[in-house]
């Protein structure tokens, strides 16, 4: 493997070999991957598949607050007086967080407002459901702020003490009166005013969001919009008032914090020389080895393969053949690679069909390490069983790969996991994500510890609280140099592929509770039976017009390709929209466009246009659908 990487780099340049990792590994492994990736191979084209799920949240947090790091926690549900869920369907996406929310709601019965174009379980059970036009969240956010500012409901003291650029934002927001906004976002003006007043007048109001915001051409803006809304109403850093991104993958937070994708460990960035210097020294490598600025994201790495700048790729626990938009394009892209390494727990993951080398990796519980959740809680997984066959822990693989490079002899690669964790603790000292007070045993004893928890606190004998820790609780402590959060104006640019005469339906994609990501895990086990083959939710009225029969196969067509699904007629979706879960291989992502967010480079999976056709030969279609479900 090392030989091939070096060959490619020698011929085509250091950045011609790219690495795409994941949110699936343990944090120590993410940290260790940084060593071969940044320190040995030294490619600048190293990113995580979190670009498909959380990069808009990361980018939005950074733009507003000066750093990534969700400021709230799950206890906020117990203190809030108003909760808006933006494109977040907790019961299906995050059922355990849903339970925390439900427990809190049953105790205090705060109003729940759900913004979602589809009647999800959460939307159905919400006090108010705002069935928004896809891709127009920023318009709604601006309109809400328009009403708040217009009626003087903002928290002037908080803004003065904590926010910069208020006037810039105010000027933009003035353009979005509820009447005009309602025409774009599909939410009537009275509802906009009602929600704005409710949110602004609540003692504490919070917003949560997931892919409905993130996977959009204005995903980062949507996050900033939520932050803006919370900042002007003084709802950051207080109990029950927060912007809480509900994280996608089990350890998306771990990769954001420590993996060196898009930067360096511990929320360090390549663009700051002092950050690079710290890591250079700590790892013991040449100061000039790191690039000076961030390289390509996952979604830009694939086009770079397409155009020949990148010749080799190392995929770690991610399955772009199913997860990326426009599958047929990705297929052609992967075919072009000189050298593709796939490292995964599953040998039959669809991407391996293009791999030149497969590295079998252990999965969680076959190895040990920590991970971080949405509320910045670091928790630990212990090993309960050996990994099957020849598979090895990812940590072991990273160490072995690194050893085969020149810098591999300079960098220390502790074998003991606790020593790796100690390195992270050391590097976290004095930073926002200070974990230096933690140790594996302490984490287990406390059943997880939220960062920051410093060694200084630990030395003083301060026990970490069971929960409820927040960021930015003191005035003017945001991570920009002036300590203030930025209020960023959000002009709305409608660049989505909207339905037209040829492709008259919105295509919305999303998650099912019974499947995890690209079904590498859940397609093989019993809970697969709840949705064993791909299906499409379509409004019965639309179905009738098209002659589509419930439970029959249909063909969906977009400008990219087609997909076969079984039709499920339900009033859960409006007449001009279909919903197809994203989990299935060779299915909905054959249709999606996936325009990229300019800030986060996250694809807009949820806004494409399609048409649906009946299929004459049901038998043959069933056969084809079945063939595509093989592993």
């Amino acid at each position, binding site marked *: 493997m090392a030989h091939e990487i070096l060959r490619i780099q020698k011929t085509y340049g250091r950045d011609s070999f790219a690495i795409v990792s994941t949110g699936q590994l343990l944090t120590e492994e993410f940290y260790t991957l940084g060593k071969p990736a940044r320190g040995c191979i030294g490619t600048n084209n190293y990113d995580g598949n979190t670009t498909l799920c959380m990069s808009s949240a990361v980018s939005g947090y950074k733009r507003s607050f000066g750093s990534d790091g969700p400021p709230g926690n799950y206890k906020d549900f117990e203190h809030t007086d108003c909760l808006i869920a933006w494109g977040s369907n907790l*019961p299906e996406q995050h059922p355990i967080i*849903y339970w925390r929310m439900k427990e809190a709601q049953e105790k205090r019965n705060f109003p729940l407002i759900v913004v979602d174009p589809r009647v999800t379980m959460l939307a159905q059970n919400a006090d108010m459901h705002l069935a928004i036009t896809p891709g127009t969240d920023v318009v709604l956010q601006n309109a809400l702020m328009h009403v708040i500012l217009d009626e003087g409901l903002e928290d002037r003291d908080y803004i003065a003490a904590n926010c910069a650029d208020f006037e810039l934002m105010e000027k933009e927001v003035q353009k979005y009166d509820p009447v005009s906004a309602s025409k774009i976002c599909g939410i009537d003006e009275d509802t906009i005013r009602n929600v704005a007043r409710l949110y602004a007048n609540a003692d504490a109001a919070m917003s949560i969001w997931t892919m409905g915001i993130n996977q959009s051409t204005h995903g980062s803006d949507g996050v900033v919009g939520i932050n803006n809304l919370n900042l002007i109403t003084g709802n950051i850093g207080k109990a029950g008032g927060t912007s809480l991104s509900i994280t996608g993958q089990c350890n998306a937070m771990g990769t954001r914090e420590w993996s060196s994708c898009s930067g360096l460990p511990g929320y360090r960035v390549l663009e700051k020389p002092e950050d690079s210097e710290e890591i250079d020294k700590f790892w013991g490598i040449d100061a000039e080895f790191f690039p000076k600025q961030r390289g390509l994201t996952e979604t830009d790495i694939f086009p770079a393969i397409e155009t020949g700048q990148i010749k080799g790729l190392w995929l770690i626990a991610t399955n772009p053949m199913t997860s990326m938009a426009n599958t047929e394009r990705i297929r052609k892209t992967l075919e072009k690679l000189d050298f593709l390494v796939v490292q995964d727990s599953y040998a039959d993951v669809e991407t391996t069909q293009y791999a030149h080398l497969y590295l079998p990796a252990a999965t969680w519980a076959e190895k040990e390490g920590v991970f971080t959740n949405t509320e910045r809680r670091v928790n630990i997984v212990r090993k309960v069983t050996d990994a099957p066959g020849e598979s090895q822990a990812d940590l072991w693989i990273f160490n072995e790969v690194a050893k085969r490079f020149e810098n591999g002899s300079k960098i220390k690669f502790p074998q003991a996991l606790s020593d790796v964790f100690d390195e992270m603790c050391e590097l976290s000292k004095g930073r926002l994500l200070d974990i230096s007070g933690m140790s594996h045993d302490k984490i287990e004893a406390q059943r997880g510890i939220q960062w920051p928890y410093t060694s200084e606190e630990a030395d003083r004998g301060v026990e970490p609280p069971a929960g409820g820790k927040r960021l930015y609780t003191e005035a003017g402590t945001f991570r920009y140099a002036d300590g203030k959060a930025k209020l960023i104006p959000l002009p709305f640019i409608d660049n989505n592929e909207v339905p037209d005469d040829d492709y008259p339906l919105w295509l919305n994609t999303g998650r099912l509770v019974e499947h995890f990501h690209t079904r590498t895990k859940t*397609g093989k086990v019993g*809970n*697969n*039976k709840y949705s064993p083959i791909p*299906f499409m939710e379509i409004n019965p009225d639309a179905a009738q017009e098209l002659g589509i029969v419930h*439970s029959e196969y249909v063909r969906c067509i977009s400008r990219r390709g087609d997909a076969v699904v079984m039709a499920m007629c339900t009033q*859960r979706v409006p007449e001009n929209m279909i919903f197809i879960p994203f989990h299935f291989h060779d299915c909905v992502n054959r249709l999606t466009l996936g325009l990229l967010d300019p800030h986060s480079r996250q694809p807009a999976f949820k806004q494409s246009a399609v048409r649906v056709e009946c299929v004459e030969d049901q038998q043959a279609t069933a*056969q084809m659908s079945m063939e595509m479900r093989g592993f």
Partner: protein
Amino acid sequence: MINVRSDEPEYAFLWDKQSKTHNRYGASIETVFEADELRDKSLDINDDVGIGDNPNRYKQHGFFLNIDNCIGCHACEAACSEKNDNPAHIAFRSVGFVEGGSFPAYQRLNISMACNHCDDTVCLKGCPTRAYTKFAEYGAVLQDPDICFGCGYCTWVCPYNAPQLDPVKGQVTKCNMCADRLEVGLKPACVAACLGNALDFGVIENIPEGRSQAKTEIPGFPRTDITHPNIRFQQTRSTHREMTRTDSTPLKYHRDDKAGMFKPAVDEKHGRERYWNWKILLSSHENAHAIFTLLSQAVMGAFVLLVIGSLFGSLAVAAPLQQLKESSAWLPLLGILVALMGFGLFKLNMHLGKPHRFYRGFYNLRHSPVSREIAGVSLFFASLSGFALMSLFDHKIAHWLVVLFSITGVLGAALGSWYMYKLYRIPARPFWDHWQTGSAFYETMLSLGSLLIAVVATAINGIDAPLLQLLAVICATGVALENIAHWFHARDLKQAGNEGAAAHYEQTTTFGKTYRLRNALLGVNLLLLITLAAAGASMPGLIATALLPAMLLLAAYTSRILFYALVIPTTMPGAFFWKNEGFVEHARETGLAEMEQMGVVYEGHHKFRLDELLQTIREASFKEMRSQFARIFTG
């Protein structure tokens, strides 16, 4: 006793402080009173002799489902399947849903359902092997798969689809209330796993904290009067007037404002088009039942006719039958009756999940119509065989035995046929629960019984016009009766508006052409029979004679496979894939079922494990056998 984890969360523990004395149906909540001999016994779970210290051990418990809160996350099902180590195609608990309204005022009600551990245990009463026990402990209805022989009758009688017949293992298993967890004060695994705060559990009629209702009706839940189920619901959010099912069952639920509850109604999901669908009918797993019932009814009918014939042999009307007895066709006829009956019984037995456990079919004579049917049919078969055997001998004792066997044979036929009919009178299966089932069965005895005699007699003796005319009259009586009964059946089903009406809808659409053919055959057959009866050996009579055997058989077989294929039970609504009959059929047809994780398996036949039977015989002591036999009668 199982270990209670040191960090077991509070919500996993049972909460009942007080309880009522009687449930809403008037039954005592205390299952057995103090000092009852059933108290202080170990449940012997996994050979654990310990006795739990749950203070409510002798109170009827039940599930509580707050349907306002169920999010359909499947956590309950996953916890259940994990604890009971169930394969993908078996689930003691399932979540289905009904939906209503139009976007965005759309509503989906998820319904999570397992066993309701009913007061009136139709499963226990139906099971011929006595595999079921209603325990004093928690009022749990438990089933022992080691006793079960896989007939699946409990799955027919249960209105909630609680018992699960595993086509792979050939046995039934079901929810066991997690009695091991109750013993240490923990709620069942499904309840402890619930993420929506929807599912709860406790002493029946107790309302959990923070809940206000304990209803027994929600849209989609079958009627409660059949079994008095121990489940209570909360459902406070207003629902739409009409709630539909996403599965293939042509049923929806319509709110009856006067009654204040939802009632099932036909949902004409696939229009009014008529089809044949022979493939579905001919490949039905219930074909064994169709063959058995048809053959046994034909043989019983023929035998009874022959016995009556010899009884009234002196009367002119019965003379042809008396003559038949004295002809060379008599012994072959008896031989054929024995062979057909034997074949029918063989087909039925081999259709069991565990055919080598056939002897357990008698175990529940006290309650089960199936046991009584098996007893009656067995008595009949033994008598028929004895009758045939003794007819070979021309000796006084043999003559005397023939008389004895004709008496026991008629008695066996009477019992067997009656309970064969009674066992289909299942309230949870409205299509069957009608007197027409009985009339159809007795009609078969008359028509196929006469046909059987006529065919054998004609084949051996040639055309015997008086005999054929007599049999034609008997047969015509049966066919006429069936024509009338079908009219009443269809009328009553349509009026009922329930699962029976849905079955009638399927009858006139999915199998509409087959149904019409059957009806036409019944009419034509009646005309042919009348022709034969009137015309005797003339040309029209001979034509009728030539046509009738095939026509009668076709009508009887079509009728009977429709009978099995059409029944729609009062089960819970399914989901789009899981617990959707339509998808199960699709998965089997396309081969999707070959993937284990689809949760669909093929219907299979099971081996007669002679080794297991011999082992049972070897290992059972005589005393055990005797006490087992005694319990057949003592219960």
